[in-house]
């Protein structure tokens, strides 16, 4: 139990996928203009990450390893993630057409969110079990969502702030992201792996 708790803490805060490992920066910058869209994206990514890490573990443990096809893992995981993302898109469109419109192209682009493939590959490399994989995936998704929501809230305030002309738009957003990454380094002392 303590192991799982430490794993979750490590994946969500200490080794936050966005702010410490710099994975998944595309949606982090792309969908953080509006808080509602960021919240939807955070939920969708959390869902995809959890399902994809569970399924990729199953595939790795029951198909790829017994058949000696370890070298196929990247292509097979990408295929799997693409399928899960398509499924998520169908779900979002069925449950909330408005959110589907707001997220637009960024919903299918979860496929190319490197955090998702990163979690699947890290699960394999660190030899996580099924439960560990699910916890790792879910807490990586939660960490991604936390960073995205904080960043979106900051950017909404930046819209009305008096920013020097040269820094307006993307530059100040990137500076903000850098400062947030510095702040997240404060979690390094928590000692989780």
């Amino acid at each position, binding site marked *: 139990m303590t192991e799982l708790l430490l794993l979750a803490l490590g994946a969500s805060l200490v080794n936050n996928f966005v702010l410490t490992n710099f994975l998944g920066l595309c949606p982090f910058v792309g969908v953080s203009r509006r808080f509602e869209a960021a919240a939807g994206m955070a939920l969708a990514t959390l869902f995809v990450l959890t399902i994809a890490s569970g399924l990729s573990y199953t595939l790795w443990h029951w198909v790829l390893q017994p058949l000696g096809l370890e070298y196929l893992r990247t292509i097979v995981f990408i295929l799997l993630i693409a399928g899960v993302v398509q*499924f998520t898109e169908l779900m979002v469109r069925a449950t909330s057409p408005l959110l589907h419109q707001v997220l637009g192209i960024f919903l299918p682009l979860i496929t190319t969110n490197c955090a998702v493939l990163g979690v699947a590959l890290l699960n394999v490399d660190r030899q996580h079990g099924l439960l560990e994989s699910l916890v790792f995936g879910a807490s990586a998704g939660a960490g991604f969502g936390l960073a995205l929501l904080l960043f979106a809230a900051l950017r909404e305030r930046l819209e009305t702030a008096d920013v020097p002309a040269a820094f307006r738009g993307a530059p100040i957003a990137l500076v903000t992201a850098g400062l947030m990454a510095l702040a997240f380094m404060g979690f390094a002392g928590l000692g989780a792996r």
Partner: protein
Amino acid sequence: MSIEVVLVACAVAFALALALGLALGWAASRLTPATGRLVEQIDALLPQTQCGQCLYPGCRPYAAAIANGEADINRCPPGGEATVRALAALLDREAQPLDPQYGASKGAVVAWIDEERCIGCARCLPACPVDAIVGAARYTHTVISAQCTGCELCLPPCPVDCIVLRPAPAASWRASLHRAA
């Protein structure tokens, strides 16, 4: 590497893709609700003027309201009787006359700006739902007839009433819509 290894790898990738495809196809047929498809079909019959004369913010919200049974099918003046008939056929209902409460059908019209009188105030620009008005502050504006939907939303903001509705030219979007209907 022997040929078997390659075959097994291909078979695994193929089986995975096939399983994912089947699962997604099944999910698509189950997860798209019947009303969602109906909204799409109704929306396709509406004229897409986004004029709001039906008192809904646009054509798609009106289509959703029809599908949910909240609104009747005779609230679309730009579409006219042709749209009411098409909707009645789709929904298997009685065709009925247009409700005059929401305005009368004017046929295919487009907005036209009298450039002698336009003062270049730019107030009609944000009102246009399809961005068919060209102009900037203190320059004369004009309407791109081919893009104009004739929705009349630019008439109220104009302070000098220099915008009038004229019959749509044959090459315009509105005229092609009425030919299709």
